[in-house]
């Protein structure tokens, strides 16, 4: 177990190293000159050269990368070119908002998805089932920016039930979480449905019924816990999807999270921030998968970590 954790952590570190290398290469190749960016439009060639030297941009690629890594090891993600602030500080300031949004989204998708899936499985091959599944597919098929704009228009602008974007109170959280969660809800509804149908076919369900348990007891005592297993594993993977979704959702709703930070940075080619956010996201994804794997044996005793 302990050795498993250590091995996984080592693997994760390697993956992150790979992510950092690939990102660094990509950003190195990007046709925009950071030094010139920092220098601005009135700078002389001399100024640009100075800046280039100070940032080490005139060094060969591998040296730049090694420098970056060494700083990274000390927890230094560098300084934003344009915001002139420590990237770690910028990310730290925005992370809570993103985490909150993700928590809200996970809550939404589980609540909506699992309920839909459960109902659909119990009413399988009825119009209810079909309707729910079409709905779930609609969720899966709708781009988040469309959903976001739509929700914003209907519930915030027209009906005025929610604030029009922003951050702070619970009411601010509802629409963005819903937007971010609907996609996952669609998948979960489908997964839950098929997992439930699968589980209900299993021998142990028959055993439970043979014991004389009532339908509800069989359902919630035996079927649902088993059906949740594949879904728990998915939540970890979801974090990757969220990381992509937050860029869009945060920009639609003006949510001050790292998605917005990333998007601003990409538009301005603020490389240290892009690097930082990519690494943080990759960390989150790796961590999410890791946690999913760690939690799995707690829920499913058959799984052994090795």
């Amino acid at each position, binding site marked *: 177990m302990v050795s498993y954790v250590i091995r996984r952590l080592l693997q994760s570190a390697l993956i992150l190293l790979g992510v950092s290398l690939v990102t660094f290469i*990509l950003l190195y190749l990007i046709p925009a000159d950071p030094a010139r960016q920092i220098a601005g439009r009135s700078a002389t060639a001399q100024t640009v050269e100075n800046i280039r030297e100070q940032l080490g941009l005139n060094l060969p690629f591998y040296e730049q990368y090694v420098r970056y890594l060494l700083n990274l090891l000390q927890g230094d993600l560098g300084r934003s070119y344009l915001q002139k602030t420590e990237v770690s500080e910028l990310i730290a300031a925005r992370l809570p908002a993103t985490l909150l949004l993700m928590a809200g989204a996970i809550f939404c998708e589980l609540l909506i998805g699992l309920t839909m899936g459960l109902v659909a499985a119990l009413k399988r091959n009825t119009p209810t089932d079909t309707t729910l599944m079409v709905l779930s597919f609609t969720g899966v*098929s709708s*781009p988040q*920016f469309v959903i976001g704009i739509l929700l914003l228009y209907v519930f915030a602008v027209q009906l005025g039930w929610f604030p029009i974007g922003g951050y702070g109170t619970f009411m601010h959280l509802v629409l963005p979480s819903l937007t971010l969660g609907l996609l996952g809800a669609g998948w979960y509804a489908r997964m839950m449905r098929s997992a439930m149908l699968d589980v209900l076919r299993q021998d142990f369900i028959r055993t439970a019924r043979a014991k004389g348990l009532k339908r509800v007891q069989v359902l919630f005592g035996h079927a649902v816990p088993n059906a949740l297993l594949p879904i728990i594993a998915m939540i970890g993977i979801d974090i990757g999807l969220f990381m992509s979704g937050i860029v869009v959702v945060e920009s639609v709703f003006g949510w001050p999270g790292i998605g917005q930070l990333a998007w601003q940075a*990409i538009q301005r080619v603020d490389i240290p921030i892009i690097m930082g956010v990519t690494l943080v996201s*990759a960390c989150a994804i790796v961590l999410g998968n890791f946690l999913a794997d760690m939690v799995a044996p707690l829920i499913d005793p058959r799984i052994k970590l090795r």
Partner: protein
Amino acid sequence: MERLLRRKLAIIALVVITIIVGAALFAPLVAPFDPSEQFFEGLTLEGAPLPPGERFWLGTDLLGRDVLSRLIYGAQTSLIIGLVANGIAVAVGALVGILAGFFRGWVETVLMRFTDLMMAFPALLLAITLAALFRPSLWIVAMVIAMVNWVQMARVVYTETRSLSEREFIVAERAMGAGLGRVLFRHILPHLLSSIVVFGTLGISTTVLLEATLSYLGIGVQPPTPSWGNIIYENQTYFTSAPWLVFFPGVAIIALALAFNLLGDALREVLDPTQKGRH
């Protein structure tokens, strides 16, 4: 096919796809106007777009172009992306998955660690960076999307190949002395085909959506080539003053993605070997 046609939803999906593909193929015949023509009378004197009306059925956009015509031509973009990008993703993913799943050992290690690496990238960030790097054009966008999307395919094919290669009939083949090529292409590939087809169809919707998102973020297909995503991107801020500019392309994207999802789902059930007569 017969089994497919027995499903009502699948038929609706097929009809929607046919309509969209038809519109895209015969765009010059179907579209009422040239999609890039900026009509003088397409804008009010103050420069506001026209709402849906008699001449411009779905209204005009901010440059006075016919929205319907742009949507019809935009279908070409979405479908090209959906087919090309997804096709590449499917091919790459399937190849990586099969090789890793069958050969194991260092081939597996290298390929799957690389897949893990790609998984760890936030897909959209990667796509955005790549798009910025290569300066977007239709084909570049297709490549970028393909690069991001092959991963799931690889994983699915990998796990399936792994369990397939442990199946007794594959062991039996090997016991007979069948070569690798034979085992891979005559026995494993046919069994993967249904998953590949299913994931391929589902992948079309994913790619169409990703293209839309990239275009929505302004780094997708370049104007004036219409794509449903960039139509929304160009007009998104007008969602209160000219909602039709966002509504129609939004519905189009959802309809296409939904149709492919429903088709994929129906295929999943039709092609699932466990559903076939097995005693």
